[in-house]
């Protein structure tokens, strides 16, 4: 009766294995299995698999959990990190508002070493762009991935050299788009990426006044991490909410593409 109206499906067999059938449907499936030995063999095998997997990995819950997974510790750790972050945000706002004042200078000395070379200024420009644009959920980029060619053309004209967005899909970051950014040293290009979790990464590109190459330098920020370097008169900065070691790996991908002439020629 019911089997005629609703024939037993593959899904029913899996529901049978996983114990997800309502009573009357279960009775119907059992009847079906008595009449179809091949299906019965499959359901039996799948059920055995399920039980074997449960037994094999019960090991994960039998032992006491490592202390690194103690939730109270994690919450406390996060609260401390967050306090530091809000202080740092307040500090950078102060810094922006009062660069001339004594407070500004003290904070400036703490947050950024004195501008010995243009790379620190590049890092500051890149950080400011990341904080403003990567946090923007609605319009992080001016031109999206569909307009990559327009974007590359536009930025190439404004930066006065051929510029193209790096491809970071190999490291799990999809291209979100890019935009032109204003800095005191002229136009800069900002490319934004997003991973499966919605975490964002930025690649910042700007011409430098000095032609001297600079090795990779850590951009000092708290929750986010960044690095900057200069190659052939062009400055690059990669910023993301990643541990610094991880970030360096990501930056190497960008750097390699720069060296291959895929980003700036």
């Amino acid at each position: 009766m019911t089997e005629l109206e609703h024939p037993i499906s593959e899904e029913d067999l899996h529901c049978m294995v996983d114990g997800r059938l309502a009573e009357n449907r279960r009775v119907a499936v059992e009847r079906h299995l008595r009449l179809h030995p091949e299906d019965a063999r499959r359901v039996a095998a799948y059920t055995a698999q399920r039980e074997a997997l449960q037994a094999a990995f019960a090991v994960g819950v039998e032992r006491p959990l490592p202390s690194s997974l103690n939730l109270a510790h994690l919450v406390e750790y996060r609260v401390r990190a967050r306090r530091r972050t809000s202080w740092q945000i307040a500090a950078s706002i102060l810094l922006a508002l009062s660069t001339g004042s004594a407070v500004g200078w003290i904070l400036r000395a703490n947050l950024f070493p004195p501008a010995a070379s243009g790379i620190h200024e590049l890092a500051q420009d890149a950080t400011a762009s990341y904080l403003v644009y990567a946090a923007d959920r609605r319009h992080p980029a001016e031109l999206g991935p569909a307009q990559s060619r327009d974007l590359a053309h536009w930025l190439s004209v404004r930066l006065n050299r051929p510029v193209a967005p790096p491809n970071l899909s190999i490291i799990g970051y999809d291209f979100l788009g890019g935009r032109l950014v204003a800095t005191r040293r002229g136009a800069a290009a900002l490319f934004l990426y997003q991973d499966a979790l919605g975490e964002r990464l930025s690649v910042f590109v700007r011409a430098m006044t000095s032609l001297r190459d600079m090795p990779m330098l850590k951009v000092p920020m708290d929750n986010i991490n960044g690095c900057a370097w200069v190659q052939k008169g062009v400055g690059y900065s990669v910023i993301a909410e990643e541990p610094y070691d991880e970030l360096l790996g990501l930056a190497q991908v960008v750097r390699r593409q720069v060296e291959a002439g895929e980003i700036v020629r």
Partner: protein
Amino acid sequence: MNLLWLVRNPGAHFAGRTPALHPTHPANMDRQVAVTTSVVMPSVLTEIEVVIPQLYRYAFALLRNRADADDLVNATLLRALDKLHTRQEEGNLRAWIFAIMHNLHVSRRHRAQYRSESFPIDDADNTDMVPAPKEAHARLEDVVRALDRLPEDQRIVVLLVSIEDLSYAETAYVTNAPIGTVMHQLAYGRERLRQLLGDETPPALRLVK
């Protein structure tokens, strides 16, 4: 929101009207937000705590290495704490955290692929991390070995459904796939395991209740 305070005062609520906890008590004006959220928060933290062993079990089944599983769950919990305020209240918390872990795993996997190209990793010391079932459990070992031969998307679905007992809809949510795809992967994964393992079933199995 003051998470730390909530942890130290897990039972805090308004009912007692204790001046020390009352939101408008002068001493507590700056804690107002924390007091307001405390009605919900401790229970959320308790709920998360219940999920941790499950996350660890699944992470271990997926990565087969305690240190990696530990690291993945740790990162998942930190991210969950950071994103807690963006979550819709009535949602399924367990599926939500599993989804965070799934995403984290997938994006790390991409990076690992990249990294393994540049820095070959010697994983010889991983062998003793594999659960070493006794001889009596040789069959479990076979199942685990067969599981390793599934494509990762099928393996993930089989594990979520079988060991975590997630519903098909929850599995679809966690893996961000249509439910039809999940059923497809489950069916393929289980059939492939059956081919690898043969039909023999342990006597414990019962078909009919």
